[in-house]
């Protein structure tokens, strides 16, 4: 039972982290119609910038400064890159962000090399917040949970309760009208892209010490993020939240419970072929749950798409 609670909490941390990425991506997508393939690359940049800053000033300055740098960088890319490609349609935009993801990975390897960076959590949070039946739960993870929830609430407040949020939402549906009312719509888009990438950067800053800061971190998370928003339903913030938590828990539980296919098959009354390494069913018999854990999100996506093509919370077919 205690292991179960620890897993629930660990899955929550992973899920919320995923949600920080998904919410920025969903924000950009629903505002601008651009699916930012390089979103996870901004997450990686956040982690690397924060690491570099933390070597001079410590963790906390990096926590504030790194997301701002990433956001400014993102806004500049929107202004001088994406806007240029925009006139060719959505597919070239997507190809542009795909190329950007490749380039950012190369640039990161160019400056920091291929190995993992020694980016660590601050000492002030390096203790066990509480323990459940001997399983210590680190304070840093509690901190992560609060940052993610705080960000979500702030985003919700800005979008639904403030003037800026109203302008953003109006600019999405009626860009010409909003433009004629005197608002600078291109600037709004630039701002939205900047904020979205800054959120990804913040996720990178707080995830870097736990998940590892290495050049593959963007690719590792990038496709999971896309799978998550497809499962949740494109453009739906609530769908993204539910799908993120779902995937966080699936991955955590799959990694800790060592269910073996062999036990299930013998339980069902099948005989194990001997010797196993000569059998054509070898893979089926030797599979374990931690082994198939990484492919479960993709499998879930395929199932959701077959059953409900618009995603769990998606409203429209396309």
């Amino acid at each position: 039972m205690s292991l179960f609670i620890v897993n629930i909490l660990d899955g929550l941390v992973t899920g919320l982290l995923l949600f920080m990425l998904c919410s920025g991506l969903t924000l950009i997508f629903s505002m601008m119609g651009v699916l930012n393939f390089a979103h996870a690359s901004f997450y990686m940049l956040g982690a690397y910038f924060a690491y570099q800053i933390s070597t001079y000033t410590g963790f906390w300055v990096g926590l504030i400064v790194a997301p701002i740098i990433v956001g400014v960088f993102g806004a500049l890319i929107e202004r001088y890159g994406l806007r240029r490609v925009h006139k060719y349609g959505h597919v070239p935009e997507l190809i542009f962000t795909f190329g950007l993801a490749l380039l950012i990975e190369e640039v990161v390897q160019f400056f920091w090399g291929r190995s993992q960076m020694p980016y660590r959590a601050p000492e002030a949070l390096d203790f066990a917040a509480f323990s459940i039946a001997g399983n210590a739960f680190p304070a840093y993870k509690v901190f992560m949970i609060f940052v993610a929830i705080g960000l979500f609430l702030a985003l919700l407040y800005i979008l639904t309760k403030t003037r800026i949020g109203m302008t953003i939402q109006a600019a999405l549906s009626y860009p010409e009208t909003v433009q004629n009312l005197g608002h600078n719509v291109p600037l709004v888009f630039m701002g939205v892209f900047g904020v979205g990438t800054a959120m990804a950067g913040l996720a990178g800053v707080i995830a870097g010490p736990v998940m590892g800061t290495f050049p593959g971190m963007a690719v590792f998370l990038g496709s999971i993020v896309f799978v998550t928003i497809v499962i949740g339903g494109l453009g739906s913030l609530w769908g993204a939240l539910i799908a993120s938590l779902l995937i966080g828990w699936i991955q955590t539980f799959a990694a800790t419970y060592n269910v073996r296919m062999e036990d299930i098959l013998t339980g069902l009354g099948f005989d194990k072929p001997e010797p196993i390494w000569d059998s054509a069913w070898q893979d089926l018999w030797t599979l374990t749950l931690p082994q198939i854990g990484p492919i479960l999100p993709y499998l879930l996506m395929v199932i959701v798409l077959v059953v409900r093509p618009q995603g769990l919370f998606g409203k429209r077919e396309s």
Partner: protein
Amino acid sequence: MSISPNTPLTAGTRRLLPLNLLWPWLVAAVILIILPLVFDSRSALTIMNQMGITIVFALSYNMLLGQGGMLSFGHAVYMGLGGFCAMHVMNMVEGGLWLPLPLLPIVGGIFGLFFAFLIGSFSTRRAGTVFAMISLGVGELVAASSIIIVIFFGGEEGISGDRTMGPEFFGLDFGAQSQVYYLTALWLFIAALGMYLYTRTPIGRISNAVRDNEERAEFLGYSQRHVRWISFCASGFFAGIAGALFAINFEILTEENLNLVTSGSILLATFLGGVGFFIGPIIGAIVFTLLQTVLALYTEIWSLYLGILFLATVMFFPFGLTGLLAIHILPWKLGKFRLLVKPYALMAIPALMVVLGGAAFLEILFHIRSAAVGDSEMTLYGITFDSHGVLPMLSAIVVFVIGVYLLNKLAPMLKEAFAQATSMKGAGS
């Protein structure tokens, strides 16, 4: 959804070569036959084989992206699965199954078609962005499964075979590299012709219609979903052929043939060449393979250059290299090409300065960041110098900045020359 006529995808209706005539195909066949006689070294043959396979793969990719408007991030799946199946069949041939090696690509194609049929049944339900993401998810699923399912994919080591063990085919045993070249070239020709003819069939034309305006196509009575599915299957078939050719040529397949990196590089190659144009992917695959093999010989950061080149292509020449060629056809036909010679010659100098200066800057920076401590001597363009010194870095930056400045200065002149060269006035002089 209305698409402006000036998008890279809809450019495909324009044609660079009159491929409906016989002579371009005859020329291509002759070139394919004499190429290995001109470049007869072993490494040249290897590069040409790789090129041939990439061309088939890129053409099949363009069938999706250029013809059908479907951006796929998982196209390596169909090439890879076709290749894996072909490799297993090749190993069965060793065990006694009768199948001459030249027929193996059909086997790969059929398996590629089968998997495309299966996966296409749910992934082609939607187009555009959603299709792109589904293709990514499926690609990741297959790539991740390939490590788990050891008996079929061979785990981390992959599976290998021996192409020479099959029945003899008119006295050929395919041990020599040149024999494999001619096998690849033959199949390249067949596949390219097949894919070209496909674009001329009604279904090929309707897939263009669905790409340009799916609602209107639906209104005319064509199910956009079925049209996409059929295109997807056809594309999977030719990707499978490419996979089997890969299996024959390299005799080994690994997880790498299925993953996102392979899917991404075919997108890179196709886009670089020019989507939409039929010969775009061919040019793209040739240039891409050359860049990959030649750049890698000279510099460690070749993939950084490739990334910069790709991004620059998307931003400045969304019609790719073929598009660049295509805009010169009109001046050529009007007989005014000579108007462009002088501006191009003038632009060439600053352009070279930008490339060399920029590359020097990156190389010096990379040397400073990655060389061992104390090792500060590096050689660039035949000059040996101290990479930590101020002078080399400064001169690289100066050359780069002057080049950019001059390019900006000269750009209006080129634009004007182009306007003159493409205007109808005084044509044929």
